[in-house]
């Protein structure tokens, strides 16, 4: 209600700075993202504003539906005259509005989708048209695959695990993993002993668990975004299967997830940007998480302790934007797009989910967030968290952010 009202007053003209935020509002990811964008703008407004101007935020619900996303985006661009669009979660919603934002030269920061094609098929193949698009995080799936493979090598060091059961959603987003993971694992002397893509329209995990068990795998490496792995985790705990469950599990990133399933998620891991706020990725991470939880701990809707990964990225996006605007010395981004892009490429900001710098026009991933690598080349900004209690998780990877070692399930210890 408040945002609608503000939108009516703040829309139009170059007299105010308007930020359009797009997210699925029935999803905790979207709610977390909305809260962080409000927080960031409020903080920065109080702190002198964006090049001296106060910004207003208008949040629109994309309903994870491409045509709905397009309709609200058009509204934001044409009626509210936004100077920045930030957000979007599913890759299909993001993809559906790329042309629109490019047509109207509106800077667009993607904070929830990680498909490399969003960069390579657009700015990568027609830079001039899509130069308005930046991706704040998480690092794209190509880098994610590499980082996850390094994580598997860490597990091998830790527990002597070298037999992998590789499971994924039977959906397009896991295909980069399907193509790269086998090669990356064999480079690291790990063997895939079982693999399958599971139907996202409902899977009975009983037979899946039996198959994995029969393959004698040391751990399951799974990539689930559409499948909720709750059934799998419950069977894992109740059946006390002798393997770990690792990888990426989007449902499992929900802060209340483990409670929801009565602790069945304990010992599972998932990689997520921001590491659920359990560790100090930068010196700004913990102050941000504390501010978030003190502000929203009494809110009705999850997430109340820390936003999910999209919230970390959205918060960082607004800070990056401020940095670029202050150097640009005007808030009229749409008429100064080339200069704005130039400023964005010069940005080097310490965010709450990591250091933010962007790839330039000539790289493979123009305007994509750069991965951070330590001296030996290992990617460090795709941390992995493990559930260790009903509400507690720890960061177990990489070394620089680790808050605890990876734990074996209690029945395997």
């Amino acid at each position, binding site marked *: 209600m408040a945002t609608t009202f503000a939108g009516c007053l703040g829309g139009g003209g170059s007299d105010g700075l308007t930020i359009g935020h797009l997210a699925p509002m029935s999803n905790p990811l979207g709610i977390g993202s909305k809260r962080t964008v409000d927080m960031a703008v409020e903080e920065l407004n109080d702190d002198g504003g964006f090049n001296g101007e106060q910004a207003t935020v208008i949040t629109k619900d994309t309903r994870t539906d491409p045509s709905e996303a397009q309709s609200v985006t058009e509204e934001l661009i044409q009626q509210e005259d936004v100077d920045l669009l930030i957000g979007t979660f599913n890759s299909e919603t993001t993809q559906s509005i790329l042309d629109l934002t490019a047509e109207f030269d509106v800077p667009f920061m993607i904070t929830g989708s990680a498909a490399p094609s969003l960069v390579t098929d657009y700015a990568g193949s027609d830079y001039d048209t899509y130069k308005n698009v930046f991706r704040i995080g998480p690092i794209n799936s190509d880098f994610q695959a590499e980082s996850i493979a390094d994580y598997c090598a860490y597990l091998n060091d830790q527990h002597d695990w070298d037999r992998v059961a590789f499971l994924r959603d039977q959906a397009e987003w896991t295909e980069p993993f399907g193509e790269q993971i086998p090669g990356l694992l064999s480079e690291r002397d790990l063997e895939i002993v079982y693999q399958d893509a599971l139907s996202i*329209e*409902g899977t009975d995990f*009983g037979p899946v668990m039996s198959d994995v068990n029969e393959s004698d795998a040391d751990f399951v490496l799974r990539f689930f975004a559409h499948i909720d792995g*709750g059934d799998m985790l419950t069977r894992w705990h109740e059946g006390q299967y002798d393997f770990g469950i690792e990888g990426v599990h989007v449902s499992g990133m929900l802060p209340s997830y483990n409670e929801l399933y009565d602790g069945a998620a304990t010992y599972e891991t998932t990689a997520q940007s921001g590491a659920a706020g359990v560790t100090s990725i930068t010196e700004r991470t913990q102050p941000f998480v504390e501010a978030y939880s003190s502000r929203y701990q009494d809110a009705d809707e999850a997430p109340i302790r820390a936003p999910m990964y999209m919230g970390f990225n959205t918060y960082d996006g607004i800070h990056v934007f401020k940095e670029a605007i202050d150097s640009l010395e005007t808030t009229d981004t749409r008429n100064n797009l080339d200069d704005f892009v130039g400023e964005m490429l010069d940005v080097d900001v310490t965010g709450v989910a990591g250091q933010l710098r962007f790839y330039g026009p000539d790289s493979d991933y123009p305007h994509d967030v750069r991965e951070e690598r330590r001296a030996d080349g290992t990617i460090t900004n795709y941390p992995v968290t493990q559930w260790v209690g009903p509400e507690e998780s720890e960061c177990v990877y990489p070394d620089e952010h680790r808050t605890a070692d990876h734990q074996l399930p209690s029945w395997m210890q």
Partner: protein
Amino acid sequence: MLGDIATLVLQGTMISAVYALIAIGFTMIFGVGGTLNLAHGALIMSGAYVFGVLAQGAHPAVAFPITILVVALLSWGLYQILVRWVEENVVITFLATVIVAVAATEVILIRFGSSPLGMTLVSGAVNLEPYGINARPRIVQFVGFVISWVAIGLLWYYITKTDDGRSILAASMSERGAQLTGVDLHSVRSKTWLIAGALAGAAGIILGSTGGATPLMWLNPLALAFMIVVIGGIGSIKGSVVAAYVIGFLEQFTVTFVGHGFRGILSLVVLVVFLLFMPQGLYGREFAHD
């Protein structure tokens, strides 16, 4: 190989029991009123959510009967408030119930959002590997199996051995005949909806406590119920039970020998074969009324 088959039989048996529970209520309503209740999936979904909410505060053994009662009442209310006013027109009923289902999704989205709701009926699992079966089924699956057969047994007893129940059977065979023998059709239909609701509630509890509850969970059970009823024969409870096992085992077979991504494809093929060559199903008569 022998172990594989034993595993297949065990897992097929347990999943099929749940499928039977999903389909029986649907087939009963179809049999008695000629009504296709496309909101059946939504009733199952409400069972999962009601149980999920109750189980947060109460013991599952208390939450279980309350949930069944609530869903039975919801189903009965759906009949009283909506369906009885439109049921003489098959097409309108069809459309009205599907709209109820999508509206239910919106209510769930408003109240619970799109993330899944988890719940526990009973916890624990049994390791059957020492007996040569490569499976560690959850106790809740056994409970589902037992609930399914207890429900089928009670229903069978009610329909064949009590006067009340026999009126349902009579109405499903011939409405005119039943009316002539003094059966009050309206009350028979109300009772059918009540019972179908109770069965949907039980199915919802089992689905919810095995896989969690989500706002779109009504779609798959509905498609399943539809398929089972076609294969088993419209209105035949026996047919639905048999067809549920046929589908359950086909799925298990596909999963074991083809791959998890192809689950359900083989059953679709069987469905199409039935529709084209045996539309009356295993135990049914063709869909024709009076």
